[in-house]
């Protein structure tokens, strides 16, 4: 897992609409990166749905919420529509998991997907806080995000 205080590795990934998004696009704003194992898994769906319900309160705190997994952006689009959410979902698809690895949030083979982790990047592009779930089947409640932002 990337360490608090490290410079957050910049990246450019495609969002659910195929548009390129870079971490540096969020300069001067805080970003909560939500690495998750995969679109359409029940736990990931619950996680992103719960976070969506409190997204206005997260935004009020000056934080952008961004999901990242190794799925294609086409899958992200379908997943976003299925869940009824508008959280930006970035595709760490090719090279597979490159960004997840850079953040220490990748589970190697035989799993081969992003681990369930949260990384808060501050206005200066530094890692301000991290959280790693004990296993990919558990996700932190939204209260954990608000604890980090308090």
């Amino acid at each position, binding site marked *: 897992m990337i360490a608090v205080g490290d410079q957050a590795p910049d990246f450019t990934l495609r969002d659910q609409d195929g548009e390129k998004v870079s971490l540096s696009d969020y300069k001067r704003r805080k970003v909560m990166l939500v690495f998750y194992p995969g679109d359409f898994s029940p736990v990931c769906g619950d996680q992103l749905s719960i976070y969506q319900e409190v997204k206005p309160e997260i935004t009020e705190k000056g934080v952008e919420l961004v999901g990242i997994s190794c799925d294609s952006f086409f899958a992200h689009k379908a997943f976003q529509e299925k869940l009824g959410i508008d959280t930006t979902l970035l595709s760490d698809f090719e090279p597979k998991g490159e960004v997840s690895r850079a953040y220490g949030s990748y589970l190697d083979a035989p799993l081969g997907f992003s681990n369930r982790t949260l990384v808060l990047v501050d206005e200066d592009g530094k890692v301000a806080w991290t959280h790693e779930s004990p296993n990919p089947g558990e*996700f*932190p409640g939204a*209260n954990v995000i*608000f*604890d980090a932002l308090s």
Partner: protein
Amino acid sequence: MADLGSAAIPPVGPDDHVCGKGGEGIVVYADLGCPHCAAEWPRLREHPGQLVFRHFPVASKHPRSPALHAAAEAAGQQGCFFELVDSLYADRGRVDDPHLWERVEQLGLDLERFEADRRSDEAEARVRRDFQSGIRAGVTSTPGVFSLPAA
């Protein structure tokens, strides 16, 4: 702005929706649009002690949920909160407005008052308050069940 950081579930208050008494109590954070809650509800209803129902609508997953929770609040204003909850969980396929009116009439409630109450700011705020307390307590899926200490 509401504080949504971690906190224990609030103690049972006078405006909580409570049925049963005695024994070990439970607090249930439930979503009226959730199929898992509907499947569990008959078993939860048989809980031998106090059962406290708290609203936890996840609108992105179940778009009709906010309206159903507001409707339950409105039924509660006329003393039939749990009766409407039972009815909604027993028949999940009929939850549009005409179906709600039909249920309300079957419960013998004042429909005009129900309509006003379910669309009120008070009902929305009441549902949101429960939801936020569930978020603070770390609810991540429904039904979320907590034990209450014995009285």
